[in-house]
């Protein structure tokens, strides 16, 4: 069932992109224009999606969805990353990463508090020192300068 929705999505995506590509013009006064390649790609997406709709042998044999606990663990990791990306411009790399590490180690992996804090501090510090200082990569800084 879910595969049918995905295939429908491919068809809709291909169709929508093809319409947009047509508006970019397929050819101009000097030959092929900006819309040609996206149009061809979109048509391929649309036709392949149609093919998948009618081709039963292409369906995944056994979709290995995680258990409910597995789902929560995946959701926890995604939530941790969303929090990190959202906080990054406001609080800087060090604090945002520390919060994410705590979410991941304490709440997703259920490691005890002391160990979680220690591990989070150590990993954030090592990444910050290695990339931020030794390799001189500019990581986002918070109002307190790190």
């Amino acid at each position, binding site marked *: 069932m879910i595969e049918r929705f995905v295939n429908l999505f491919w068809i809709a995506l291909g169709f929508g992109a093809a319409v947009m590509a047509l508006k970019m013009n397929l050819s101009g006064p000097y030959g*092929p224009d900006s819309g040609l390649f996206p149009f061809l790609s979109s048509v*391929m*997406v649309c036709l*392949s999606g149609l093919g998948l709709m009618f081709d039963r042998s292409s369906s995944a044999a056994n979709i290995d969805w995680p258990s409910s606990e*597995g789902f929560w663990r995946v959701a926890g*990791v995604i939530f941790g990353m969303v929090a990190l990306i959202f906080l990054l411009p406001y609080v800087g790399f060090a604090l945002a990463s520390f919060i994410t590490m705590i979410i991941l*180690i304490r709440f997703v992996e259920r490691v005890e508090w002391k160990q979680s804090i220690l*591990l989070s501090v150590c990993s954030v510090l090592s990444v910050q020192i290695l990339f931020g200082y030794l390799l001189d990569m*500019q990581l986002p800084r918070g109002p307190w300068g790190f």
Partner: protein
Amino acid sequence: MDTISALSQGFFLVLQPQNLLFCLIGSLVGTLIGVLPGIGPLAALALLLPITFTMTPVAGVLMLSAIFYGAMYGGSTTSILLNIPGEAASVVTCRDGYQMARQGRAGAALGISAIGSFVAGTLSVVALTFFAPLLGGFALRFGPPENFALMAMGLVCTLFMISGSKLKGLIMISLGFLLATIGIDVVNGKERFTFGTIDLTGGIDILALVIGLYGVSEILLNVEKIIKTTLVDTKVSNIFPTRDDLRRSMAPIMRGSILGFLLGLVPGGGPITASFMSYALEQKISRNPENFGKGAIEGVAGPESANNGAVGGSMVPVLALGIPGTPVTALLLGALVIHGIQPGPMFITQHADIFWGVVASMYVGNVMLLILNLPLVGMWVQLLRIPYRYLFPVVLLLSIVGTYSANKNIFDLWVMLGFGVLGWFLYKLEYDFAPFIIAFILAPLMEQSLRQSLAMSANGIMIFTQRPIAAVLFTISFLLIALIVFKRHKNELTEEINNANKSSL
């Protein structure tokens, strides 16, 4: 300049202390990546690519290549000791390598794997040394129609080689093309699929995409299950194989090297296919096929040599023609572009220093890896004791740093996360991302070649039939497509017959 003197200049470049250091770092990181399950060579390359921005192109490409072949060496360690492949090309090594470890012969399995990898790696580099310039020389005759036909053939080959649904592979190729067109059209400055946002005008960043699809999605797939690391009880001792082991392994190593190199040349082939085909070949020609899966040393020697041989082979089309056959070589191609080097048939003549530097570094790297792998096996084994629950948050942090540092743009992080979740979901539905990455990287070159071909043609697409080389390449592509359809039809017929037989019973 003849091959030998060019190669000696490459060695001169590689043996400079700074380049030698980067080669060593790449080999070490590659082995580490190969050893640790849950992070593959492609994600590692993408994570470390921004670090190379501050290096010279030679040092950067040299280090990235070392990570690639280093991962092939390291991947066997977890396969043999834990029955968990460190990377996909070592999946087949689990079968006999782990059985050998259970029989107390882990050392011999690790030893023969390192020796096989060294022999195959070296032989494939020798072949690369002489074959790539020949191919590059021939490709100098190519114009836009030939380039387009060649890239199209590369993608059809990739489609032919992937396991699973070819239609899903075709969707991935088309999506790769479509996503690559997002941003400003370099020819006339028109915006395409940007929806008025500034963030999309520069297009989708390749690093965000690769780290998302191969780094974040891999983590999501792993955290679903609680991974418990259990090392095999046997102590790893006596890593030098016996004389009998060497005698039995010599022929599989040579066959694996040749097969690996040849499969590496074919787009879509690469180390994974090479290792599986080598195992199948060894089992087929063995006098005792029943021993396979029970600890046959030939089942370790052949595939481990084949996956390393394929590394050298897969570097030929990317360096000589600018056509990547695997996602890893596609990313290497992307790295060259980021460093301001245009890959393609002119690459070897225009950037002889980089080409010969990379080739020479592969000789040096193979020696380094042999030295690293045999005596340091104990250290790699200790690293395997790090629980995955401590490892993945650090990998996530590295993914964030790797993606952000390329453009210093928070939007890229959302793209990375989006592709991570999409990758996790599509993996469940058995989609293969290799054609997607290759198509995404080739798309700008393909579009340029297509537009140039049509602009110079008086008869539209007929130009592809009027140019002999392009026509031959397209004919091969059509034959491969016909073969895909024929194979599919044959499989359907067989299935129908089997179903009919079952229902009649």
